[in-house]
């Protein structure tokens, strides 16, 4: 089962220090070796919005929603079941501290 975890941007969070980087690096390496972490990345806060109307594409800067409403990073994970998903998320947050993630199962 694959899930897309989108972690919401949180400016109140401590800036990552060396220790957190090291821990996160180890965590990512372990999950990748087990095949649990499929892909991950951070997102540029400056995005564009594309709108398709009657055959025409419009690209606008933005959206400028509240910072905490935007996605800061994502991880695509391949897990046995939802319980394993919970455990993976728990380990992630144990490293990064308080935060919010939106998670959807990926079909197909």
């Amino acid at each position, binding site marked *: 089962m694959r899930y897309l975890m989108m972690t919401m941007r949180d400016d109140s969070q401590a800036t990552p220090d060396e220790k957190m980087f090291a821990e996160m690096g180890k965590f990512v390496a372990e999950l990748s070796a087990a095949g649990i972490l499929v892909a991950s990345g951070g997102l540029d806060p400056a995005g564009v919005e594309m709108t398709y109307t009657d055959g025409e594409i419009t690209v606008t800067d933005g959206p400028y929603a509240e910072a905490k409403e935007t996605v800061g990073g994502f991880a695509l994970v391949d897990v046995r079941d939802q319980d*394993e998903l919970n455990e993976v998320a728990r380990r992630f947050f144990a490293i990064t501290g308080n935060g919010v993630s939106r998670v959807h199962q990926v079909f197909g």
Partner: protein
Amino acid sequence: MTDAHRAIDAVWKLEAAKIIGGLTRMVHDVGLAEELAQDALVAALEQWPRSGVPDNPGAWLMAIAKRRAVDHIRREKLADSKQAELARDYDEKEQPQDDDVLRLMFITCDPVLPARDRAALTLRLLGGLSAAEIARALLTTELNVTQRIAVAKRTLAARERSPSADIPAVLEVIYLIFNEGYSATSGDDLMRPGLCLEALRLGRMLATLAPTEAEVHGLVALMEIQASRQAARTGPNGEPIQLHEQDRGRWDPVLIRRGFTAMLRARDIGGTPGPYVLQAAIAICHAQARTSDDTDWARIANLYTALDRLLPTPVVRLNRAVAVGKAQGPQAGLALVDSLVGNSALRDYHLLPSVRGDLLEQVGRHDEARLEYERAASLTRNAAERAFLLRRASSIVLVTSGPTLGEAAREFLERSDLDTATLRSYGQTVRRLCRALGEQLPLASLTADQVARVFAAAWPGAAARTWNRHRSAIRSFAAWASVPDLDSGLDRRAEPPARQDALDPLRLDLVWSLDAALRERTLWRLLHESGAAVTTVLSLNVEDIDVEDRRARAGDTWVTWRSETAKLLVRLTDGRARGPVFLADRRPVPARMPAPQDICPETGRGRLSYPRAEYLFKQATRALDPAGNGYTLTQLRSSERP
């Protein structure tokens, strides 16, 4: 399961290998290591709901389990000071060692265990699966899995040498698990993806533990790429879709990329490619082809030729024939496939007639193609695949005249002038003939040559007595169906006196520890302690027993036994004064009423039959027998007496 249960279970599956591996290093016994780990899980269940899951749950579980292990070692007291020293050592060495998990794999994949038990034990100890989950994965009962695992652990504990598994042995078990999930040999679903995932996880785990082994990366690459086709392999109704007809857009690019990465690692290590690397290379050829027409069949055929040299199995040869058929045309493929017909290892392998049917159809031999599809359908145990093969068969219209082999066989076996035992024996032979040649074969076209080939493929190593039994069945069938000389290609064989291997003391101990019914345990003990013939022992009556002298009169001989039998016999015959000692489970049906001396006057049940007693013993000992067949009662009675 409660939330806490589920959270702990998820942690357990991720950490089981490391924890049990570390504990096994301490206590030198996987069975005990698992018990200690279970204790730690119970502790987690008590504490985590209150305190929350600890930041490093694996280390937490390991710490608790280690404390229990040290307690255990101390409690055992092993006045042996060396042991105490070891225990102190472990107190200090908190960190698990990298080799622990690899060593655990070598233990669970020890060839001393039957193949399926190796798979079950590996899933249990390295994948952290529960008995219920393993039972679901291997399509058996939870009780069966629990018993198998218990026997496996005891076998390992009783073994005196160190584990004899190596990397290739571990790869074999992992690929066995993968294949059980990928091409389910039985059941209604073609795949059990959960099992494939477990195998992939095990393979990836092994790849981090043994990164310099090219074959490990080869197996991982092979599994990743095969798994990438999962979604495309079955149609909406679960029917199989062949590789060349699959929608390649549904192949999973993530798994393909992982497969490529693993393959690159294998190549970087270099050396002569082993069987898994070669198979992965073949899988990669398929993955690289954008459409099935783009497939580089010449390269695949070459890879199969190389594989055939390392792994000359009939299945590899069959795949090679498919590739050659694609690369050089169906006629060339058919020539290779025809050389495999009659190979005894493939006699029940449905893909042989399936491939042959496909090639025959391509060269325009439609009648034969249809027979082959039907035969393939009758051989597969997978429902979706059977339906698919029957559809292919029915798409070919066939013209026949006169009765078919199948019709003649059915009529022959419905005769009323033969007794049931004879008919059952004839049935085995005639049905084998139908399975091998196809029920639709016109009886008139059946030849002695075909019969001889079926015999050579079906019973190559059969004992002379078995061979002769099948031979006389054919003679009887030929006479009845007025097809003369069907047996002309079959020689009668000289029958040597029967002799079977006795059970060694270790196997015997495992037999005694089986959880069997009182009647079975009594019969087995009696056979072993008396060494008397099975028919003699089954013919004993309660009134013949001399409890005091531990013996019974049987015809003109005496059957004698010792204390174990004596204890059991008293309980088995409790409250009965007369009649057979060993009784059948049910009362006989009126149509098959045995002679009065074979019926218990008190319960009305009949005497236990030899075939039934033999069947039960075989079933019960199947898990103990590395060959997976189970033992015979004759082997038991001829084992060394206590």
